[in-house]
């Protein structure tokens, strides 16, 4: 009988410890709110959404930061999507197995490179290159950041897009071949459209990754809070939300308005990432269930 | 009154799964002490489910409703407070596909002993050897007890599955199509084993074809879609069945 008591205890411990993630996500949510929400009492919303971020003079307009994050992220996806999807197509549909045995681990290596290392190379290699090639006053620009972010999100996009392509049933391909299609026509006209939602999900997750990236952008985007003002902004310095938090948190007094607004920005990042991640995972889960159902019927 | 010859008596037993299937209905069935009782019939008759009821493996399945009486030596096996762990040692189960644990040959047999709390290595060694001898596997394995169980052939693996049940010194052995995946030679060995074993244990067997049923049954029950159609001594059921459905099945008119 003692055995049964012991078994019950272990089951309880596993249940409680196993549910701890709920506790942690609630804690994160709660603490962000606790430290950040009071800022809303001290600052008017119109001031918050103004265009000047200058904490020293008590100007807390976050539009430049939102704009900075947006530009850098959008542009990085413009680079990462074709590269990531193209590589996924190559790996999944065209490359011989021997090539994949080298290619896939290489992408995994990229996934493992710490973002601070990429930021480091961005400062020492990419930024001077940008400055000289495009004749800019500085190489620390939104575009430099986008380039690094693309490198960071490519492994995610490749992996998920690869899964999406793999999930397209072979019967689709066989049917197209039977109708006289060439391999490329099969890929372009049949496989890609069928994998579209999966690839979109891959892009969403890439966006999430880019939005949340801190070190690489902090090191190469120049940290100038300006609002998007036309195409020139791509090759000018910007400031992202993440970089703002990281660079200014060390200098604020705990409990001050500046401190609370940084937490508020954190709340915005938290909510954005939450929406993106939960939505993408839901889509991925539904697709797995659908393709499993297809296999059974 | 409790008949001393009956090891397990089943009365008015009903079993329904969550997907709606009623696999056993109004079942009245006796499994006699130290005899081989056989349940045979076409697929879907509920026989496999009955095997799993006897050691409460049904606890792991999606059972919606189960009621009735399954008495072993007067104890109702369906009781929620029953010590099912002890039950599973008393009623040892062998299944149609041999599933060795991913351990060594020795480890497969000692697993049941270890979880029962046995610590003494010497006693464990003795029990393992005895179990392997009783299952006619000792000669083939005694010099490689630490080898992975999966290095054995299919027939040897099934005998290993029998051995690990024997090591727990059960009172009843239930077998669900134990030789369906095996060749005739190994099948004959297992049937020989069962004939010997019934002297010590009570055997409940679901055979994988009717010939095996006829060879092995001291007592037999014919199951058709969850109902027991006829039950009686083996000779009577196979040579002179009373019920026309039994007769049709035994004579091969359907299968």
């Amino acid at each position: 009988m003692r055995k049964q008591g012991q078994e019950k205890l272990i089951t309880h411990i596993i249940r409680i410890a196993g549910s701890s993630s709920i506790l942690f996500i609630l804690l994160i949510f709660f603490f962000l709110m606790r430290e950040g929400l009071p800022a809303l009492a001290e600052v008017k919303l119109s001031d918050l959404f103004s265009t000047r971020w200058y904490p020293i003079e008590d100007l807390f307009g976050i539009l430049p930061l939102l704009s900075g994050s947006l530009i850098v992220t959008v542009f990085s996806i413009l680079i990462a999507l074709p590269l990531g999807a193209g590589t996924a197509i190559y790996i999944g549909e065209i490359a011989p197995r021997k090539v994949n045995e080298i290619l896939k681990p290489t992408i995994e290596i990229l996934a493992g490179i710490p973002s601070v290392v990429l930021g480091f190379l961005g400062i020492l290699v990419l930024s001077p290159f940008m400055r000289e090639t495009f004749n800019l006053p500085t190489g620390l620009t939104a575009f430099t950041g986008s380039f690094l972010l693309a490198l960071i999100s490519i492994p995610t996009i490749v992996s998920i897009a690869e899964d999406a392509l793999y999930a397209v049933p072979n019967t689709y391909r066989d049917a197209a071949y039977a109708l006289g299609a060439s391999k490329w026509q099969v890929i372009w006209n049949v496989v890609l459209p069928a994998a579209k939602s999966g690839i979109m999900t891959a892009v969403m997750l890439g966006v999430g990754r880019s939005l949340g990236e801190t070190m690489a952008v902090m090191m190469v985007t120049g940290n100038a809070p300006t609002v998007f003002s036309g195409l020139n902004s791509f090759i000018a310095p910007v400031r992202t939300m993440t970089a703002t938090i990281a660079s200014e948190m060390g200098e604020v007094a705990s409990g001050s308005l500046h401190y609370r607004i940084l937490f508020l920005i954190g709340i915005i990042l938290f909510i954005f990432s939450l929406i993106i991640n939960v939505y993408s995972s839901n889509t991925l889960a539904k697709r797995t269930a659908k393709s499993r159902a297809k296999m059974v019927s | 009154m409790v008949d001393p010859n009956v090891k397990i008596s089943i009365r008015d037993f009903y079993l329904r799964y969550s997907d709606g299937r009623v696999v056993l209905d109004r079942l009245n069935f006796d499994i006699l002490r130290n005899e081989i009782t056989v349940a045979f019939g076409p697929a879907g008759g509920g026989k496999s489910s009955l095997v799993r009821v006897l050691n409460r493996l049904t606890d792991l399945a999606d059972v919606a409703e189960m009621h009735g009486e399954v008495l072993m030596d007067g104890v109702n096996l369906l009781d929620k407070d029953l010590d099912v762990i002890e039950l599973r040692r008393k009623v040892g189960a062998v299944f149609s596909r041999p599933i060795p644990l991913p351990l060594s040959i020795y480890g497969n047999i000692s697993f049941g002993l270890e979880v029962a709390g046995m610590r003494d290595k010497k006693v464990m060694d003795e029990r393992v050897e005895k179990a392997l001898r009783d299952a006619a596997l000792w000669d083939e394995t005694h010099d490689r007890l630490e080898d992975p169980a999966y290095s054995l052939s299919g027939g040897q693996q099934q005998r290993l599955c029998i051995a690990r049940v024997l090591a727990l010194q059960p009172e009843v052995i239930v077998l669900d199509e134990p030789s369906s995946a095996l060749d005739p030679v190994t099948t004959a060995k297992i049937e020989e084993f069962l004939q010997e074993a019934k002297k010590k244990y009570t055997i409940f067997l679901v055979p994988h074809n009717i010939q095996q049923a006829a060879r092995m049954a001291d007592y037999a029950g014919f199951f058709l879609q969850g109902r027991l159609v006829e039950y009686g001594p083996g000779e009577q059921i196979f040579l002179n069945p009373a019920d026309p459905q039994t007769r049709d099945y035994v004579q091969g008119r359907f299968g």
Partner: protein
Amino acid sequence: MMIQGKKFTESARSKHITQGIAFTIIRVIAVVTVLPILGIVVYIVVRGLPAISWEFLTAMPRDGMRAGGILPAIVGTFYLMIGTAAFAIPLGLAGGIYLSEYSEDNVWTRLIRVAIISLAGVPSVVYGLFGLGLFVLFFQFGISILSASLTLSIMTLPVIISTTEESLRSVPYQFRIVGISLGGTQWQTIRKVILPQALPGIITGIILGLERAVGETAPILFTGATFFLPRLPSSPLDATMALPYHIFVISTQVPGMPIQIQYGTVLVLMVFVLGMNLIASLIRSRARANRQW
């Protein structure tokens, strides 16, 4: 089905040409994607190797980090890794075991899964904020190895839970039935049969999770990392140097920092991280070869 009505009946030649162009573009894309990766690794090795010496790896820094070794950063990263492991492994294992072996298909389980997905999506700098608010300030652990490890461990939980669950689920269900059928309890069966079989996958997941934690800067920025440390940390309540933070500071905030030392430090971090990656891959492939079933 979407192929109905589509005829692929251009002339064979124009199909061939289109395919040739398309395949070439795709091949170029793949090369363009892979080349920078190889370039990065090679470049770091080439420029960082000259800095590596026994002194570099084992001596304390001198002259405001501009000379000497980076021992405290290496040791600090190591301490953070151990600290993260200490909290993340038990909780992560429990989470994975719970989801795979004990959970039912109900609302609570679904909530747990949403929580895990959410934790996985929280940006690293937000983890830093959280760690600051909860561990540094509220619990008053201060800027310390403890605060940083706790923060990093929550960040690492989703990876460990997912890979643990996946590894356990990949062990055939029959083994559980057999274990129970032989009189084992659920936990006994898990402990003696299922877990050992799932262990290589679990360990791989742990290593990959810790690899990421080791390379992160933002979560430790305000919770544990410091730049100038006269001695090695002597207790979990001390702040510590760490390789990622060190790289960040020496490449952006220290005038006159020798380039060679910068590349050397980066190389050390890369070896740390990619080394863990390699070990995880080796464990994974060896396990696949050794599988009995």
